[in-house]
């Protein structure tokens, strides 16, 4: 297991380096080069000096990359001349908001999707299965801006049960405890994820239920609850682990529509604004973090497989 872990971590680090080279190379390939891209909004001589320092402008591309990488490794992701603040501070402000929103929604979706998926599998073809499947399709197909708008109009504007915007207080704890403002954006985001997860769990559980070991368990006298919880659940988690791992970059990248609708200045909204304003330092810094998240997610998913299915860890690639 340790060997497997070390090998995967080393692979992840190599991928991260490749991601950083790719990102920096793309900046270099922009029309006009990195100087024009980054300096487009810089009007002061002090700003010019800062950009030259952060991105190694004036040096060959390789030295520029190493200079930039050195800055990144020291925690300096650059400076946004559009927002007049450091990329790190933008990240520090937006990342917790996005994590609270998307992680909460993802956890909520998983917690609900697993029993729902198992229930559907256990009652495959029943009215319950059909109804839940229909609802899943609705949830999956409903645009988040539409669902969010409906929820706001009904539960915030008309009934005043919840807030019309996401939590505004700084700090993860303050946001998590602000259930009144957190509920609607989390529910809006969770509905889509829940529908997807439930579908995968259902399919995996149906496959498991058809396996010989399940028949054996039943022959040994195991009841339906025990079969589902002890034998089906673990094997049905493989696709959930895959989805959860693949969700990490999405979790980090935020949820543009929901963030915009619920007034949450998270990663998705910041990235979108940076793209509109050609704010390349922010784009570069944020995408690097999201890329790192993607690599980390893949790594965690692999480790999750190994835990869920011991056969996986012994397979050499």
């Amino acid at each position, binding site marked *: 297991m340790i060997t497997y872990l070390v090998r995967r971590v080393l692979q992840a680090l190599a991928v991260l380096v490749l991601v950083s080279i790719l990102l920096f190379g793309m900046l270099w390939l922009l029309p006009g080069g990195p100087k024009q891209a980054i300096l*487009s909004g810089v*009007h002061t001589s002090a700003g010019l000096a800062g950009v030259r320092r952060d991105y190694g402008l004036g040096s060959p591309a390789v030295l520029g990359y190493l200079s930039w990488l050195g800055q990144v490794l020291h925690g300096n992701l650059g400076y946004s001349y559009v927002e*007049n603040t450091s990329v790190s501070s933008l990240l520090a*402000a937006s990342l917790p908001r996005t994590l609270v929103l998307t992680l909460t929604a993802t956890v909520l979706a998983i917690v609900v999707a697993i029993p729902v998926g198992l229930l559907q599998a256990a009652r495959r073809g029943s009215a319950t299965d059909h109804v839940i499947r229909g609802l899943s399709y609705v949830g999956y197909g409903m645009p988040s801006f539409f669902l969010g708008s409906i929820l706001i109009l009904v539960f915030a504007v008309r009934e005043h049960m919840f807030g019309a*915007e996401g939590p505004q207080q700084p700090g993860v704890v303050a946001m998590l405890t602000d259930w009144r403002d957190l509920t609607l954006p989390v529910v809006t985001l969770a509905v889509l994820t829940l529908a997807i997860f439930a579908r995968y769990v259902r399919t995996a559980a149906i496959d498991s239920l058809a396996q010989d070991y399940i028949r054996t368990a039943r022959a040994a006298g195991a009841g339906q609850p025990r079969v589902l919880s002890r034998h089906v659940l673990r094997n049905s988690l493989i696709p959930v682990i895959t989805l959860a791992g693949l969700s990490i970059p999405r979790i980090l990248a935020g949820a543009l529509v929901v*963030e915009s*609708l619920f007034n949450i200045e998270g990663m998705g909204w910041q990235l979108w604004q940076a793209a509109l304003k050609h704010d390349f330092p922010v784009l570069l810094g944020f995408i690097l973090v999201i890329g790192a998240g993607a690599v980390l997610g893949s790594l965690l998913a692999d480790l999750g497989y190994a835990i869920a299915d011991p056969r996986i860890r012994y397979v050499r690639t």
Partner: protein
Amino acid sequence: MRRALRRHGTLSLLPLRRLRRQAVAACGGLLAVGLVTAGCGAAGANPGGDTPVGGGTVTYALQPNQTPDYIFPFTNGNAFTVANTDTFQFLMYRPLYWFGDRALPYLNEKYSVADPPVYHGQIVTFKLKKQYKWSNGTPVTAQDVLFWVHMQQAVGASDWGGYVPHEFPTNISSIRAIGQDEIKMVIVGRYSRLWFTDNELSQITPMPLYWDRTSATATSDCAQVVSDCAAVYNYLNGQSKNPGTWPGSPLWSIVDGPWKLVSYSAQQGLAFKFNAAYGGPAAKHHIRTFVERPFTSEEAEYNVLQAGGSNGLDVGYMPTVDAPVPPPGNQLGTNPVGGYKLQAVYVWGLSYFAYNFSSADPQLAVASQLYIRQAIQLLENQAAIIQGPLHGYGKVTAGPVGGYPPTKYLSPLAKRGDPYPYNPLEARTMLADHGWTVSPATGTLTCTDPGSGARQCGKGITRGTPLKLNMYYSTGTSWLESAVLQLKSNAAQVGINILVTGQTFDQVIAEVTGQACSSGKCPWELADWGLGWSYSPDYMPTGDELFQTGAAANLGQYTNARNDELIEQTLHNYSNADMWKWENFLTTQLPIGLQPNGVSALVESIGSLHIGTQSSTLSINPEEWYYVR
């Protein structure tokens, strides 16, 4: 675009910063004289009583993604936005002269730090009002003005967002203090008093001498020595970074305006407390705390406004798409938000799309034909745009001077309304009369009678040339996108093929001002980056910045000797007659496409709060706001 364009400091042409990118108003309601009035039409509003109540807090919604991000009032082009200047810096650091007198964009002596300037030939003097003091106890003096002007002289060309080449401070030969509170300048050249006050002195904001330093411990002497100013600028510009450090900063907490910044959060907003040392005018029972809240989108803001509650807004705005259509004869529709009063704010500016007269345009011969521009203008249905996508909240643009609010600068002819009302039949006839015939194969007009004759296609247009025009337009403003598509559709009906390309505001500006337009092919004939131009900090709408040959903001590179001559007359010896003469002439030449001026903001203020009529310059005076019961 004053500043309007500001955020895009990408341009080397500084006046471009005044190109307006979108509705930027923060709050404001404006109204033209005798037309919309504050609070009118606010069915369902609860105006409360009329007894002022002292104190209280106002929570005010900033426009989407318009959170102030630059505090140093000597603002560079990148930060030259309404959000930074009018709704942020002006609260703390008062400009020498304040513009915006209720709805009208005129000099407002009441809020100005100096008395009106006195002109004797080419010498101008002005005295600072004695009641203005910095919050550290020192008075606002002539040295504070010198500090600003010297900084403009030192780094203005590169670092002052309102800089116009060859104008202030290049057009003064000397400036000096006379005693503690008086300034004397000598002007180079001959300018009208009105123009010099409204377009040049309007740029100045006195700065406290405490800021005259190059580090926290090293003082400097920019107020006396111009060569000292660059280092001072670099220090102050650096201190303006990282907004979280502004509250409590020994630099930025020295203010002469009515408000002091006490907290800053990009998510939660900015909080201001009333400056007890403020010496200027304020309502007797004014509010004590002013909070500006940022929003990610109009929809998010409107949801919060409608939901109300403890996190609600006292002053917000309604998206145009949700605006109630006014009944015939009214300026406002029935306000759908209960308990709030509605105002419509129109910015003091000019709404237009540009034509490309650059020699780099391969279609220059087509765009140069006046009759073609007239035909296109006849296909621009301003009335339909106002009644359709603008929901009735728009004003017709009738010439090269902003038509709303109706100022003294607007000619009687322009006040009559659209000089080219929608008339596709006339457009079709006009083109046919000049040798254009619809090609059966393509459905597009092609030139079948080339030549320079009065009834031929025109100089440079060859036989078979299709009437095909490229148009870049800025996406993101729904009514504007509808207007562009409507023009394309209207043009197609008569055989003009307008190829529209939607881009971000930045991209449109980059296309229009980019390298291609100076050195190679410049492949656009029409460009619409949004809402044209806002007159600030140059409040007098003379054409020297937009239409004069070689002017930095003359993006279409229009040139006309008669036009230049008429503009010069408006600069040097102002009279309404001269202004109107130029205006009427240029209206016939159509160097720009005239399009409606869409409402900048539909301001909603809670019924128990009195905010008065807001300014078309988009500046705000929350020190004049008070609650009533």
